Protein backbone atom coordinates (compact mmCIF):
# COMPACT_ATOMS: atom_id res chain seq x y z
CA UNK A 1 0.00 0.00 0.00
CA UNK A 2 2.97 2.31 0.52
CA UNK A 3 3.48 2.60 -3.22
CA UNK A 4 -0.17 3.56 -3.71
CA UNK A 5 0.28 6.13 -0.95
CA UNK A 6 3.12 7.74 -2.82
CA UNK A 7 1.44 7.57 -6.20
CA UNK A 8 -1.95 8.92 -5.19
CA UNK A 9 -4.52 9.85 -7.85
CA UNK A 10 -3.90 13.55 -7.26
CA UNK A 11 -0.22 13.14 -8.02
CA UNK A 12 -0.83 11.08 -11.16
CA UNK A 13 -3.37 13.73 -12.32
CA UNK A 14 -0.81 16.50 -11.96
CA UNK A 15 1.74 14.30 -13.76
CA UNK A 16 -0.56 13.64 -16.72
CA UNK A 17 -1.96 17.19 -16.90
CA UNK A 18 0.64 19.51 -15.37
CA UNK A 19 -0.33 23.11 -14.61
CA UNK A 20 1.74 26.14 -15.54
CA UNK A 21 4.24 24.68 -17.98
CA UNK A 22 5.87 27.12 -20.37
CA UNK A 23 8.82 29.50 -20.32
CA UNK A 24 8.79 33.25 -21.12
CA UNK A 25 11.23 35.55 -22.86
CA UNK A 26 11.63 38.23 -20.19
CA UNK A 27 11.85 36.61 -16.79
CA UNK A 28 13.57 38.29 -13.87
CA UNK A 29 15.50 35.17 -12.90
CA UNK A 30 15.97 31.74 -14.42
CA UNK A 31 17.49 28.74 -12.73
CA UNK A 32 18.30 25.23 -13.89
CA UNK A 33 18.22 22.49 -11.27
CA UNK A 34 19.10 18.88 -11.82
CA UNK A 35 18.81 15.64 -9.91
CA UNK A 36 21.85 13.79 -11.28
CA UNK A 37 20.95 10.44 -9.73
CA UNK A 38 17.85 9.92 -11.81
CA UNK A 39 17.66 12.44 -14.63
CA UNK A 40 15.12 14.97 -13.35
CA UNK A 41 15.69 18.51 -14.65
CA UNK A 42 13.81 21.77 -14.31
CA UNK A 43 14.26 25.22 -15.78
CA UNK A 44 12.27 27.62 -13.63
CA UNK A 45 11.71 31.34 -14.09
CA UNK A 46 10.07 33.96 -11.90
CA UNK A 47 8.79 37.35 -12.97
CA UNK A 48 8.11 40.17 -10.60
CA UNK A 49 4.55 41.54 -10.65
CA UNK A 50 5.04 45.34 -10.85
CA UNK A 51 3.89 47.31 -7.82
CA UNK A 52 3.85 44.24 -5.59
CA UNK A 53 6.33 41.90 -3.95
CA UNK A 54 4.85 38.92 -5.79
CA UNK A 55 6.24 36.68 -8.55
CA UNK A 56 4.72 34.65 -11.36
CA UNK A 57 6.19 31.21 -12.05
CA UNK A 58 7.12 29.76 -15.45
CA UNK A 59 8.87 26.45 -16.00
CA UNK A 60 9.78 23.59 -18.23
CA UNK A 61 10.91 20.25 -16.91
CA UNK A 62 11.50 16.61 -17.64
CA UNK A 63 11.67 13.78 -15.21
CA UNK A 64 9.78 11.27 -13.13
CA UNK A 65 6.13 11.49 -12.14
CA UNK A 66 6.96 12.73 -8.65
CA UNK A 67 9.15 15.62 -9.83
CA UNK A 68 6.72 16.63 -12.57
CA UNK A 69 3.65 16.42 -10.34
CA UNK A 70 5.43 18.37 -7.64
CA UNK A 71 6.26 21.18 -10.07
CA UNK A 72 2.62 21.40 -11.12
CA UNK A 73 1.54 21.52 -7.48
CA UNK A 74 4.16 24.18 -6.75
CA UNK A 75 2.70 26.30 -9.57
CA UNK A 76 -0.80 26.00 -8.13
CA UNK A 77 0.38 26.98 -4.67
CA UNK A 78 3.01 29.64 -5.23
CA UNK A 79 2.27 31.29 -8.59
CA UNK A 80 1.66 34.97 -7.88
CA UNK A 81 2.94 34.78 -4.30
CA UNK A 82 5.72 36.71 -2.60
CA UNK A 83 8.81 35.20 -1.03
CA UNK A 84 7.36 35.90 2.42
CA UNK A 85 4.20 33.99 1.49
CA UNK A 86 5.91 31.14 -0.36
CA UNK A 87 8.92 30.37 1.77
CA UNK A 88 6.93 28.86 4.68
CA UNK A 89 5.35 26.47 2.17
CA UNK A 90 8.79 25.40 0.94
CA UNK A 91 10.07 24.91 4.49
CA UNK A 92 6.97 22.91 5.36
CA UNK A 93 7.37 20.71 2.26
CA UNK A 94 10.94 19.92 3.33
CA UNK A 95 9.84 19.20 6.90
CA UNK A 96 6.97 16.99 5.70
CA UNK A 97 9.47 15.00 3.60
CA UNK A 98 11.57 14.47 6.70
CA UNK A 99 8.45 13.47 8.66
CA UNK A 100 9.18 16.36 11.01
CA UNK A 101 5.77 17.95 10.46
CA UNK A 102 2.26 16.72 9.69
CA UNK A 103 0.88 17.78 6.27
CA UNK A 104 -0.72 21.26 6.31
CA UNK A 105 -3.24 21.66 3.49
CA UNK A 106 -3.42 25.45 3.90
CA UNK A 107 0.27 25.72 3.10
CA UNK A 108 0.58 23.01 0.46
CA UNK A 109 -2.85 22.42 -1.09
CA UNK A 110 -2.62 19.28 -3.23
CA UNK A 111 1.00 19.10 -2.07
CA UNK A 112 -0.06 17.20 1.03
CA UNK A 113 -0.55 14.22 -1.29
CA UNK A 114 3.24 14.08 -1.58
CA UNK A 115 3.51 12.96 2.06
CA UNK A 116 3.85 9.36 0.84
CA UNK A 117 7.20 10.22 -0.70
CA UNK A 118 8.68 10.43 2.79
CA UNK A 119 8.59 6.60 2.90
CA UNK A 120 10.98 6.45 -0.06
CA UNK A 121 14.06 8.58 0.76
CA UNK A 122 15.48 8.13 -2.74
CA UNK A 123 12.49 10.08 -4.14
CA UNK A 124 12.58 13.05 -1.72
CA UNK A 125 14.93 14.98 -4.02
CA UNK A 126 12.46 14.45 -6.88
CA UNK A 127 9.64 15.98 -4.85
CA UNK A 128 11.74 18.92 -3.65
CA UNK A 129 13.45 19.75 -6.94
CA UNK A 130 11.00 22.42 -8.16
CA UNK A 131 10.47 23.92 -4.69
CA UNK A 132 14.24 24.42 -4.24
CA UNK A 133 14.39 25.87 -7.74
CA UNK A 134 11.61 28.36 -6.90
CA UNK A 135 13.40 29.49 -3.75
CA UNK A 136 16.66 29.89 -5.68
CA UNK A 137 15.00 31.85 -8.49
CA UNK A 138 13.14 34.25 -6.20
CA UNK A 139 16.26 34.93 -4.13
CA UNK A 140 18.17 35.66 -7.33
CA UNK A 141 15.39 37.92 -8.66
CA UNK A 142 15.25 39.81 -5.40
CA UNK A 143 19.02 40.09 -5.28
CA UNK A 144 19.05 41.71 -8.72
CA UNK A 145 16.50 44.25 -7.59
CA UNK A 146 18.73 45.08 -4.63
CA UNK A 147 16.03 44.14 -2.14
Amino acid at each position, binding site marked *: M*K*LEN*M*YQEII*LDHYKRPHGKGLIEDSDAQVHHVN*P*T*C*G*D*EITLQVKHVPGTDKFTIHYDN*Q*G*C*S*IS*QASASILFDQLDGKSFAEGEPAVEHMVAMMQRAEEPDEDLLGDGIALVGVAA*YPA*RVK*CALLSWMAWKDAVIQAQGKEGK
Partner: protein
Amino acid sequence: MSDLDVAAIKADFPILSRTIRDGKKLVYLDSGATSQKPRQVLDAEREFYEKHNAAVHRGAHQLAEEATDAYETARKKIATFIGAKVNEIVFTKNATEAINLVSYAFLNATLKAQNKKPLPEGSEQFVLHPGDELLVTEMEHHANLIPWQELADKTGVKLRWIGLTDSGRLDLSNLDSLITNKTRIVSLTHQSNLLGTINDIDVITKAAKKVNALVLLDACQSVPHMKVDVGTLNVDFITWSGHKMLGPLGIGCLWSRNELLNAMPPFITGGSMIETVSMEGSTFASAPQRFEAGVPMAAQAIGLAAAVDYLSAIGMDKVAAHEHKLTQLALELLGKIPGVRIIGPLDSANRGSAISFVVDGLHPHDVGQVLDEQGIAVRVGHHCAWPVCKRYQVPATTRATFYIYNDESDVEALAAGIIKAQEFFGVK
Protein backbone atom coordinates in the same frame (compact mmCIF):
# COMPACT_ATOMS: atom_id res chain seq x y z
CA MET B 1 29.57 -26.78 -21.45
CA SER B 2 27.46 -27.58 -18.39
CA ASP B 3 25.20 -24.88 -16.96
CA LEU B 4 26.02 -22.97 -13.81
CA ASP B 5 24.40 -24.37 -10.68
CA VAL B 6 22.84 -21.02 -9.83
CA ALA B 7 21.00 -22.38 -6.79
CA ALA B 8 24.28 -23.55 -5.28
CA ILE B 9 25.93 -20.24 -6.12
CA LYS B 10 23.05 -18.25 -4.58
CA ALA B 11 23.46 -20.22 -1.36
CA ASP B 12 26.99 -18.79 -1.05
CA PHE B 13 25.64 -15.20 -0.96
CA PRO B 14 24.10 -14.38 2.43
CA ILE B 15 22.38 -11.20 1.24
CA LEU B 16 20.42 -13.02 -1.47
CA SER B 17 18.31 -14.78 1.14
CA ARG B 18 16.88 -11.55 2.56
CA THR B 19 13.51 -10.11 1.65
CA ILE B 20 12.68 -6.66 0.27
CA ARG B 21 9.83 -4.22 0.98
CA ASP B 22 6.80 -6.33 1.98
CA GLY B 23 8.58 -9.68 2.32
CA LYS B 24 9.35 -9.95 -1.39
CA LYS B 25 12.18 -12.19 -2.56
CA LEU B 26 15.21 -10.14 -3.62
CA VAL B 27 15.91 -10.24 -7.34
CA TYR B 28 19.22 -8.38 -7.60
CA LEU B 29 19.74 -6.98 -11.08
CA ASP B 30 22.19 -4.21 -10.23
CA SER B 31 25.56 -6.00 -10.31
CA GLY B 32 26.67 -3.41 -12.85
CA ALA B 33 26.65 -0.91 -10.00
CA THR B 34 28.11 -3.31 -7.46
CA SER B 35 28.10 -7.07 -7.11
CA GLN B 36 27.09 -9.04 -4.05
CA LYS B 37 29.74 -10.95 -2.07
CA PRO B 38 30.00 -14.69 -1.43
CA ARG B 39 30.69 -15.94 2.06
CA GLN B 40 34.17 -16.99 0.91
CA VAL B 41 35.15 -13.35 0.28
CA LEU B 42 33.62 -12.13 3.54
CA ASP B 43 35.36 -14.93 5.48
CA ALA B 44 38.75 -14.18 3.91
CA GLU B 45 38.57 -10.52 4.84
CA ARG B 46 37.35 -11.29 8.34
CA GLU B 47 40.06 -13.90 8.87
CA PHE B 48 42.73 -11.39 7.91
CA TYR B 49 41.53 -8.96 10.56
CA GLU B 50 41.13 -11.74 13.14
CA LYS B 51 44.47 -13.46 12.60
CA HIS B 52 46.99 -11.54 10.46
CA ASN B 53 46.23 -7.84 10.60
CA ALA B 54 49.22 -5.52 10.61
CA ALA B 55 50.61 -2.66 8.53
CA VAL B 56 51.98 -4.14 5.31
CA HIS B 57 55.60 -3.37 4.25
CA ARG B 58 56.24 -1.83 7.64
CA GLY B 59 57.76 -3.57 10.60
CA ALA B 60 59.76 -6.68 11.20
CA HIS B 61 57.46 -8.50 13.59
CA GLN B 62 55.66 -11.73 12.75
CA LEU B 63 52.23 -10.19 12.18
CA ALA B 64 53.76 -7.67 9.78
CA GLU B 65 55.44 -10.51 7.89
CA GLU B 66 52.19 -12.46 7.65
CA ALA B 67 50.20 -9.40 6.55
CA THR B 68 52.78 -8.50 3.91
CA ASP B 69 52.95 -12.06 2.66
CA ALA B 70 49.16 -12.27 2.41
CA TYR B 71 48.99 -8.93 0.56
CA GLU B 72 51.66 -9.83 -1.99
CA THR B 73 50.24 -13.32 -2.46
CA ALA B 74 46.90 -11.66 -3.22
CA ARG B 75 48.61 -9.44 -5.79
CA LYS B 76 50.14 -12.50 -7.48
CA LYS B 77 46.80 -14.27 -7.60
CA ILE B 78 45.05 -11.26 -9.11
CA ALA B 79 47.84 -10.82 -11.66
CA THR B 80 47.57 -14.46 -12.74
CA PHE B 81 43.79 -14.05 -13.14
CA ILE B 82 44.37 -11.70 -16.09
CA GLY B 83 47.55 -13.40 -17.37
CA ALA B 84 49.87 -10.74 -15.95
CA LYS B 85 53.07 -10.63 -13.89
CA VAL B 86 52.96 -9.72 -10.23
CA ASN B 87 54.88 -6.43 -10.60
CA GLU B 88 52.39 -5.25 -13.23
CA ILE B 89 49.46 -4.83 -10.81
CA VAL B 90 48.92 -1.59 -8.89
CA PHE B 91 46.21 -1.58 -6.22
CA THR B 92 44.05 1.53 -6.13
CA LYS B 93 40.80 2.44 -4.41
CA ASN B 94 38.81 1.59 -7.54
CA ALA B 95 38.87 1.87 -11.32
CA THR B 96 38.05 5.59 -11.15
CA GLU B 97 41.23 6.18 -9.17
CA ALA B 98 43.21 3.92 -11.51
CA ILE B 99 42.15 5.94 -14.55
CA ASN B 100 42.95 9.17 -12.73
CA LEU B 101 46.39 7.69 -11.93
CA VAL B 102 47.15 7.44 -15.65
CA SER B 103 45.69 10.85 -16.54
CA TYR B 104 47.71 12.43 -13.73
CA ALA B 105 50.86 10.71 -14.99
CA PHE B 106 50.42 12.81 -18.12
CA LEU B 107 49.70 15.98 -16.15
CA ASN B 108 52.53 15.53 -13.67
CA ALA B 109 55.06 14.60 -16.35
CA THR B 110 54.02 17.62 -18.43
CA LEU B 111 54.25 20.04 -15.48
CA LYS B 112 57.57 18.68 -14.23
CA ALA B 113 59.05 18.80 -17.73
CA GLN B 114 57.94 22.44 -18.05
CA ASN B 115 59.70 23.19 -14.76
CA LYS B 116 62.72 21.09 -15.72
CA LYS B 117 62.29 18.88 -12.65
CA PRO B 118 63.53 15.28 -12.44
CA LEU B 119 61.38 12.66 -14.13
CA PRO B 120 61.72 8.88 -14.47
CA GLU B 121 63.45 7.46 -17.52
CA GLY B 122 61.07 7.00 -20.41
CA SER B 123 58.64 9.65 -19.14
CA GLU B 124 58.67 11.59 -22.45
CA GLN B 125 55.76 9.45 -23.59
CA PHE B 126 53.69 11.14 -20.89
CA VAL B 127 54.77 14.73 -21.60
CA LEU B 128 52.07 16.57 -23.56
CA HIS B 129 52.74 19.30 -26.11
CA PRO B 130 50.50 21.88 -27.81
CA GLY B 131 48.59 20.25 -30.63
CA ASP B 132 48.48 16.83 -28.93
CA GLU B 133 45.18 14.99 -28.73
CA LEU B 134 43.46 12.56 -26.38
CA LEU B 135 40.81 10.15 -27.72
CA VAL B 136 37.90 8.61 -25.86
CA THR B 137 34.46 7.41 -27.03
CA GLU B 138 30.92 8.68 -26.62
CA MET B 139 29.94 5.59 -24.63
CA GLU B 140 32.38 6.06 -21.75
CA HIS B 141 31.47 5.98 -18.08
CA HIS B 142 32.17 9.37 -16.52
CA ALA B 143 35.26 7.86 -14.82
CA ASN B 144 36.81 7.44 -18.26
CA LEU B 145 35.69 10.81 -19.57
CA ILE B 146 36.00 13.49 -16.90
CA PRO B 147 39.69 12.79 -16.10
CA TRP B 148 40.55 13.29 -19.78
CA GLN B 149 38.41 16.45 -20.03
CA GLU B 150 40.25 17.80 -17.01
CA LEU B 151 43.63 16.83 -18.44
CA ALA B 152 42.80 18.61 -21.68
CA ASP B 153 41.59 21.72 -19.81
CA LYS B 154 44.73 21.86 -17.67
CA THR B 155 47.27 21.30 -20.43
CA GLY B 156 45.55 22.85 -23.45
CA VAL B 157 45.52 19.63 -25.51
CA LYS B 158 42.41 18.60 -27.41
CA LEU B 159 39.94 15.89 -26.41
CA ARG B 160 38.20 14.05 -29.24
CA TRP B 161 35.88 11.06 -29.26
CA ILE B 162 34.67 8.16 -31.36
CA GLY B 163 30.93 8.53 -31.96
CA LEU B 164 28.24 5.86 -31.75
CA THR B 165 26.05 4.20 -34.37
CA ASP B 166 22.28 4.13 -33.98
CA SER B 167 22.53 0.49 -32.97
CA GLY B 168 24.77 1.21 -29.97
CA ARG B 169 28.19 0.36 -31.37
CA LEU B 170 31.30 2.44 -31.97
CA ASP B 171 31.21 4.37 -35.24
CA LEU B 172 34.59 3.41 -36.68
CA SER B 173 33.94 4.89 -40.12
CA ASN B 174 36.32 7.82 -39.54
CA LEU B 175 38.75 6.10 -37.19
CA ASP B 176 41.83 7.04 -39.21
CA SER B 177 40.96 10.72 -38.86
CA LEU B 178 40.55 10.27 -35.11
CA ILE B 179 43.70 8.23 -34.37
CA THR B 180 46.50 10.27 -35.93
CA ASN B 181 50.09 11.09 -35.10
CA LYS B 182 48.72 13.79 -32.76
CA THR B 183 47.00 11.15 -30.61
CA ARG B 184 48.83 10.41 -27.36
CA ILE B 185 46.36 8.04 -25.71
CA VAL B 186 43.15 6.26 -26.66
CA SER B 187 41.04 5.41 -23.62
CA LEU B 188 37.95 3.29 -24.08
CA THR B 189 35.64 0.84 -22.40
CA HIS B 190 35.80 -2.88 -23.06
CA GLN B 191 32.12 -3.34 -22.24
CA SER B 192 29.65 -0.46 -21.88
CA ASN B 193 27.90 -0.28 -18.51
CA LEU B 194 24.80 1.21 -20.12
CA LEU B 195 24.59 -0.23 -23.63
CA GLY B 196 26.17 -3.62 -22.94
CA THR B 197 28.29 -3.24 -26.08
CA ILE B 198 31.52 -5.24 -26.14
CA ASN B 199 34.04 -3.32 -28.23
CA ASP B 200 36.50 -4.73 -30.74
CA ILE B 201 39.78 -3.74 -29.15
CA ASP B 202 42.03 -5.11 -31.92
CA VAL B 203 40.92 -2.51 -34.44
CA ILE B 204 41.74 0.21 -31.91
CA THR B 205 45.12 -1.13 -30.84
CA LYS B 206 46.20 -1.70 -34.45
CA ALA B 207 45.48 1.95 -35.30
CA ALA B 208 47.03 3.21 -32.07
CA LYS B 209 50.26 1.23 -32.47
CA LYS B 210 50.77 2.74 -35.93
CA VAL B 211 50.99 6.22 -34.38
CA ASN B 212 52.60 5.23 -31.06
CA ALA B 213 49.53 6.16 -29.06
CA LEU B 214 48.98 4.46 -25.72
CA VAL B 215 45.75 2.51 -25.16
CA LEU B 216 43.88 2.31 -21.87
CA LEU B 217 41.09 -0.22 -21.49
CA ASP B 218 38.37 0.38 -18.92
CA ALA B 219 37.59 -3.23 -18.03
CA CYS B 220 35.14 -2.64 -15.15
CA GLN B 221 32.35 -4.51 -16.89
CA SER B 222 34.53 -7.10 -18.63
CA VAL B 223 36.99 -8.53 -16.07
CA PRO B 224 34.11 -9.67 -13.82
CA HIS B 225 32.12 -11.19 -16.69
CA MET B 226 34.47 -12.72 -19.28
CA LYS B 227 38.00 -13.96 -19.75
CA VAL B 228 40.37 -10.98 -19.98
CA ASP B 229 43.99 -11.75 -20.82
CA VAL B 230 46.67 -9.08 -21.16
CA GLY B 231 48.53 -11.26 -23.64
CA THR B 232 45.74 -11.23 -26.21
CA LEU B 233 44.52 -7.67 -25.73
CA ASN B 234 47.71 -5.82 -26.63
CA VAL B 235 46.75 -2.66 -24.73
CA ASP B 236 48.94 -0.56 -22.43
CA PHE B 237 46.69 -0.10 -19.39
CA ILE B 238 43.77 -2.03 -17.99
CA THR B 239 41.65 -0.71 -15.11
CA TRP B 240 38.90 -2.40 -13.12
CA SER B 241 37.21 -2.39 -9.72
CA GLY B 242 37.16 -5.22 -7.20
CA HIS B 243 33.63 -4.60 -5.96
CA LYS B 244 32.06 -5.38 -9.35
CA MET B 245 33.67 -8.84 -9.38
CA LEU B 246 32.45 -10.18 -6.04
CA GLY B 247 35.29 -8.42 -4.21
CA PRO B 248 35.15 -5.84 -1.44
CA LEU B 249 34.43 -2.16 -1.93
CA GLY B 250 37.47 0.07 -1.78
CA ILE B 251 39.92 -1.82 -3.99
CA GLY B 252 40.62 -1.58 -7.70
CA CYS B 253 43.45 -2.41 -10.04
CA LEU B 254 45.62 -0.85 -12.69
CA TRP B 255 47.52 -3.27 -14.90
CA SER B 256 50.40 -2.11 -17.09
CA ARG B 257 53.77 -3.43 -18.21
CA ASN B 258 56.34 -2.83 -15.54
CA GLU B 259 58.63 -0.70 -17.74
CA LEU B 260 55.71 1.61 -18.59
CA LEU B 261 54.73 1.97 -14.94
CA ASN B 262 58.33 2.79 -14.11
CA ALA B 263 58.28 5.57 -16.71
CA MET B 264 55.39 7.31 -14.93
CA PRO B 265 55.67 9.92 -12.19
CA PRO B 266 53.65 9.16 -9.05
CA PHE B 267 50.04 10.24 -8.46
CA ILE B 268 49.22 10.08 -4.77
CA THR B 269 52.36 10.62 -2.75
CA GLY B 270 53.33 10.00 0.85
CA GLY B 271 54.60 7.01 2.78
CA SER B 272 55.50 3.65 1.20
CA MET B 273 56.08 4.95 -2.29
CA ILE B 274 59.45 6.57 -1.59
CA GLU B 275 63.05 5.51 -1.99
CA THR B 276 64.81 8.34 -0.11
CA VAL B 277 63.40 11.38 1.68
CA SER B 278 64.94 14.57 2.99
CA MET B 279 63.59 18.04 3.52
CA GLU B 280 65.24 19.13 0.28
CA GLY B 281 63.65 16.49 -1.87
CA SER B 282 62.65 12.87 -2.28
CA THR B 283 63.06 10.04 -4.73
CA PHE B 284 60.48 7.43 -5.46
CA ALA B 285 60.23 3.65 -5.33
CA SER B 286 59.86 1.58 -8.43
CA ALA B 287 56.49 0.31 -9.56
CA PRO B 288 54.09 -0.92 -8.32
CA GLN B 289 55.02 0.49 -4.90
CA ARG B 290 55.52 3.94 -6.44
CA PHE B 291 51.75 4.13 -6.86
CA GLU B 292 50.68 2.70 -3.50
CA ALA B 293 51.06 5.48 -0.95
CA GLY B 294 49.87 4.98 2.61
CA VAL B 295 49.18 1.82 4.54
CA PRO B 296 47.95 -0.72 2.01
CA MET B 297 44.33 -1.93 2.10
CA ALA B 298 45.50 -5.46 2.75
CA ALA B 299 42.16 -6.86 3.93
CA GLN B 300 40.46 -5.73 0.73
CA ALA B 301 43.26 -7.20 -1.39
CA ILE B 302 42.86 -10.54 0.36
CA GLY B 303 39.09 -10.33 -0.13
CA LEU B 304 39.63 -9.65 -3.84
CA ALA B 305 41.97 -12.64 -4.11
CA ALA B 306 39.23 -14.78 -2.59
CA ALA B 307 36.84 -13.41 -5.23
CA VAL B 308 39.36 -14.43 -7.89
CA ASP B 309 39.42 -17.93 -6.40
CA TYR B 310 35.63 -18.08 -6.46
CA LEU B 311 35.37 -16.99 -10.10
CA SER B 312 38.28 -19.17 -11.19
CA ALA B 313 36.61 -22.22 -9.66
CA ILE B 314 33.59 -21.54 -11.88
CA GLY B 315 35.66 -20.58 -14.91
CA MET B 316 35.27 -17.25 -16.73
CA ASP B 317 34.17 -18.97 -19.97
CA LYS B 318 31.29 -20.51 -18.04
CA VAL B 319 30.47 -17.16 -16.44
CA ALA B 320 30.34 -15.50 -19.86
CA ALA B 321 28.27 -18.31 -21.39
CA HIS B 322 25.78 -18.13 -18.52
CA GLU B 323 25.35 -14.38 -18.87
CA HIS B 324 25.08 -14.67 -22.62
CA LYS B 325 22.10 -16.99 -22.18
CA LEU B 326 20.41 -14.56 -19.80
CA THR B 327 21.16 -11.63 -22.12
CA GLN B 328 19.57 -13.43 -25.05
CA LEU B 329 16.48 -14.23 -22.98
CA ALA B 330 16.23 -10.66 -21.71
CA LEU B 331 16.53 -9.18 -25.23
CA GLU B 332 13.82 -11.57 -26.38
CA LEU B 333 11.37 -11.05 -23.51
CA LEU B 334 11.78 -7.28 -23.22
CA GLY B 335 11.77 -6.91 -26.99
CA LYS B 336 8.27 -8.44 -27.01
CA ILE B 337 6.72 -5.96 -24.57
CA PRO B 338 4.86 -3.19 -26.44
CA GLY B 339 6.09 0.25 -25.43
CA VAL B 340 9.50 -0.99 -24.27
CA ARG B 341 12.56 0.13 -26.22
CA ILE B 342 16.02 -1.25 -25.53
CA ILE B 343 18.84 1.32 -25.73
CA GLY B 344 21.86 -0.51 -27.07
CA PRO B 345 22.55 -3.43 -29.43
CA LEU B 346 19.58 -5.72 -29.97
CA ASP B 347 21.70 -8.66 -31.10
CA SER B 348 23.48 -10.68 -28.46
CA ALA B 349 26.76 -11.06 -30.35
CA ASN B 350 29.55 -9.06 -28.71
CA ARG B 351 27.06 -7.85 -26.18
CA GLY B 352 27.27 -8.04 -22.42
CA SER B 353 24.47 -8.33 -19.94
CA ALA B 354 23.72 -4.65 -19.26
CA ILE B 355 20.22 -4.11 -20.65
CA SER B 356 19.04 -0.50 -20.58
CA PHE B 357 15.54 0.33 -21.69
CA VAL B 358 12.87 3.01 -21.77
CA VAL B 359 9.12 2.54 -21.40
CA ASP B 360 6.70 4.76 -23.33
CA GLY B 361 4.88 7.17 -21.06
CA LEU B 362 6.88 6.18 -17.98
CA HIS B 363 9.97 7.75 -16.51
CA PRO B 364 12.71 5.27 -15.55
CA HIS B 365 12.53 6.37 -11.95
CA ASP B 366 8.87 5.35 -11.80
CA VAL B 367 9.56 2.04 -13.55
CA GLY B 368 12.33 1.37 -11.05
CA GLN B 369 10.02 2.20 -8.16
CA VAL B 370 7.39 -0.35 -9.17
CA LEU B 371 10.08 -2.97 -9.80
CA ASP B 372 11.56 -2.20 -6.38
CA GLU B 373 8.16 -2.77 -4.79
CA GLN B 374 8.26 -6.27 -6.27
CA GLY B 375 11.72 -6.93 -4.84
CA ILE B 376 13.51 -6.31 -8.14
CA ALA B 377 16.59 -4.08 -7.81
CA VAL B 378 17.57 -2.25 -10.99
CA ARG B 379 19.30 1.05 -11.59
CA VAL B 380 17.65 4.17 -12.99
CA GLY B 381 19.11 7.38 -14.32
CA HIS B 382 22.16 8.17 -16.42
CA HIS B 383 24.30 5.34 -15.03
CA CYS B 384 27.28 7.72 -14.99
CA ALA B 385 27.05 7.85 -18.78
CA TRP B 386 25.05 11.00 -19.40
CA PRO B 387 26.46 11.54 -22.95
CA VAL B 388 25.08 8.14 -23.96
CA CYS B 389 21.60 9.18 -22.85
CA LYS B 390 21.97 12.42 -24.82
CA ARG B 391 23.17 10.53 -27.89
CA TYR B 392 20.06 8.34 -27.92
CA GLN B 393 17.83 11.24 -26.86
CA VAL B 394 16.48 9.72 -23.70
CA PRO B 395 16.42 11.63 -20.40
CA ALA B 396 17.45 8.50 -18.51
CA THR B 397 17.04 4.73 -18.68
CA THR B 398 16.19 1.79 -16.46
CA ARG B 399 19.02 -0.74 -16.43
CA ALA B 400 19.19 -4.40 -15.45
CA THR B 401 22.51 -6.23 -15.21
CA PHE B 402 22.99 -9.95 -14.70
CA TYR B 403 25.65 -12.02 -12.95
CA ILE B 404 26.39 -15.56 -11.80
CA TYR B 405 23.66 -15.53 -9.14
CA ASN B 406 20.88 -14.65 -11.62
CA ASP B 407 18.83 -17.19 -13.55
CA GLU B 408 16.04 -17.33 -16.11
CA SER B 409 13.36 -16.78 -13.46
CA ASP B 410 15.00 -13.43 -12.65
CA VAL B 411 14.76 -12.36 -16.29
CA GLU B 412 11.12 -13.47 -16.39
CA ALA B 413 10.43 -11.56 -13.18
CA LEU B 414 11.93 -8.43 -14.76
CA ALA B 415 9.70 -8.72 -17.82
CA ALA B 416 6.60 -9.33 -15.69
CA GLY B 417 7.59 -6.44 -13.45
CA ILE B 418 7.82 -4.00 -16.35
CA ILE B 419 4.33 -4.99 -17.49
CA LYS B 420 3.09 -4.44 -13.93
CA ALA B 421 4.61 -0.94 -13.99
CA GLN B 422 2.80 -0.19 -17.23
CA GLU B 423 -0.47 -1.39 -15.67
CA PHE B 424 0.09 0.58 -12.47
CA PHE B 425 0.48 3.82 -14.38
CA GLY B 426 -2.17 2.97 -16.92
CA VAL B 427 0.10 3.12 -19.97
CA LYS B 428 -0.32 -0.49 -21.06
